């Protein structure tokens, strides 16, 4: 679905990302993990077409980004960034409605309004619908943006791509899990999600594929059991760790420290 071979990104001859191969298929939930400054956000920006790689190109659905029509692309992939603007003096439903902007010219159709209402209910935000966005807490704002990108991809297209940069910031445990479940459900419908995550145990529970980045280089890529090993993780994070089996889900459970 999305493919990149030997991707480089450099700023003033300093490599932020070096020769990265990556591919992602339909129904895959890919987690990108790694220590601070590993280049996770830069990598996601490259995949999202926010910045162009210094070498080679990202191919999304057999087509380079420059050949995609702007609106059509917005109906196939959505992203929200880690540091979204904090001052948006609009109502919550107006912010979520932005997700429908690729679908109408000047006035939202009845269907757009229905989609927004539906997604607000689905994400449990309907009680905030008429509130001003600026008055919400950090976690609630985060959920509004998740609703916004979800409603953006609500259409009949197949194999859509969702890109999220640390979507769990500011969220409490319950909402961390509900957001990840939502993403998982989205992927199960034949779509894909590429998500930057910090919590390795959550990544282990929900992701099918994990990419570990460190200092701009891809360390490894594969299923959670392949990638989350004591050897790799303690080296990348420079911290001793234990990997055991989660007694319930049988996925790797990582415990850092002695």
């Amino acid at each position, binding site marked *: 679905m999305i493919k990149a071979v030997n991707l480089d990104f450099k700023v003033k001859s300093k490599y932020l990302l070096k020769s990265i191969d990556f591919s992602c298929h339909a129904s895959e939930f890919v987690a990108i993990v790694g220590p601070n400054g590993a280049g996770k956000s830069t990598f996601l920006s490259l995949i999202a077409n926010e910045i162009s790689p210094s070498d080679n190109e990202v191919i999304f659905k057999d087509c380079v980004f420059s050949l995609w029509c702007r609106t059509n692309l917005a109906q196939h992939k959505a992203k929200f960034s880690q540091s*979204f603007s904090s001052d948006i003096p609009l109502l919550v439903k107006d912010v979520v409605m932005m997700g429908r902007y690729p679908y109408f010219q*000047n006035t939202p159709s009845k269907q757009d309004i229905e989609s927004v209402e539906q997604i607000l209910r689905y994400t449990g935000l309907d009680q905030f619908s008429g509130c001003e966005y600026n008055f919400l807490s950090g976690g609630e704002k985060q959920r509004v943006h998740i609703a916004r990108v979800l409603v953006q991809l609500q259409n009949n297209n197949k194999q859509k791509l969702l890109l999220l940069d640390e979507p769990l910031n500011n969220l409490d445990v319950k909402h961390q899990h509900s957001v990840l479940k939502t993403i998982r459900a989205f992927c199960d419908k034949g779509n894909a999600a590429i998500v930057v995550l910090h919590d390795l145990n959550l990544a282990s529970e929900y992701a099918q594929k994990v990419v570990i980045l460190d200092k701009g280089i891809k360390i490894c890529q594969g299923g959670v059991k392949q990638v989350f090993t004591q050897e790799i993780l303690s080296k990348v994070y420079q911290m001793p760790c234990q990997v055991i089996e989660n007694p319930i889900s049988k996925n790797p459970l990582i415990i850092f420290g002695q």
Partner: protein
Amino acid sequence: MNKRRSLYLIMLLLVLLVLMIASVFIGVYEFDNGVLETVFNLVFYPDIVSESDRYIIQQIRLPRIVIAVLAGAGLGVSGSALQGLFKNPLASPGLIGITSGAVLFAAVTIVLGGYIKEYLPLWISYSLLSIMSFIGAVLTMWFVYRISTSSGKTNIGVLLLSGVAITALSAAITGVLTFVSNEQELRNLTFWTLGSLAGSNWEKVFILSVVMAISLKFLLPLSKQLNALMLGEKDACHLGVSIEAVKRKIIIFTALMVGIIVCFTGTIGFVGLVVPYILRLVFGSNYYYVLPLSVLLGGILLLLADTLSRSLIAPVEIPIGILTSMMGAPVFMGLLLKYKKNL
């Protein structure tokens, strides 16, 4: 949402129409048969109206009213569009120096143009002034945008200070020009700094209507894009918004409107600040409402100011810039107080 907006649009339009009709009846000139009957006769029995009465209504009051509405609409919508572009309610054509840039170029053209005027046909020298103030507006706009915005973020302090710098430069050069200009040019220059709608005529109405029609055609459909810009440029891009095209449109068409309006009416400050401010109080910052409604509210506000300016202490006419500044300066201070933490 759509219905609600149409409702407000119709309401403001009605207010504007009533105000326009009322303004026709207000003024210093005394008609032979009283103003009501004169207007009535003008509509139904045009033959019996005397030449001078007809002239006052048709050639003085009507074009002045239309120019007031058009200029107010232009300034109002420019203010809204600029605030969307710079993501800040303090941006307005006057404060960031676009008006001054236009005045500067116009003043230079008036004084220096005097030397080459005799070699040019009248219509060229007339449009030369419009073109030069447009160029002045575009150049300042571009300059201000470049120095205040880096990687998609506008530093509002730099934005306002660059406005101060350009206004100072414009004032200084206009000052120098007063020394080298003759009496007629001097009167022209005073007009630029205080603003007046007294010189309105149907040619100006025609030019301004065309400019406004073109600009509104490009600017009014941008409400969606301006809302999306609040998310930041990157996220707006993911919604399919072409950021560069939006910026280009706003820069060119606000400069076009402001340039031509300055050229015809001089400096009328604060309309572009007050109009979006009032709309934000009622509708929040949703450009879906603010952008189209600022056209009508701008027209209403400037027409009101102009009618007051020529009737408050008649027969003396208060320069309109004084009235709009009296409305605008308190709003500006209020905004500063509210946003002082973010400056």
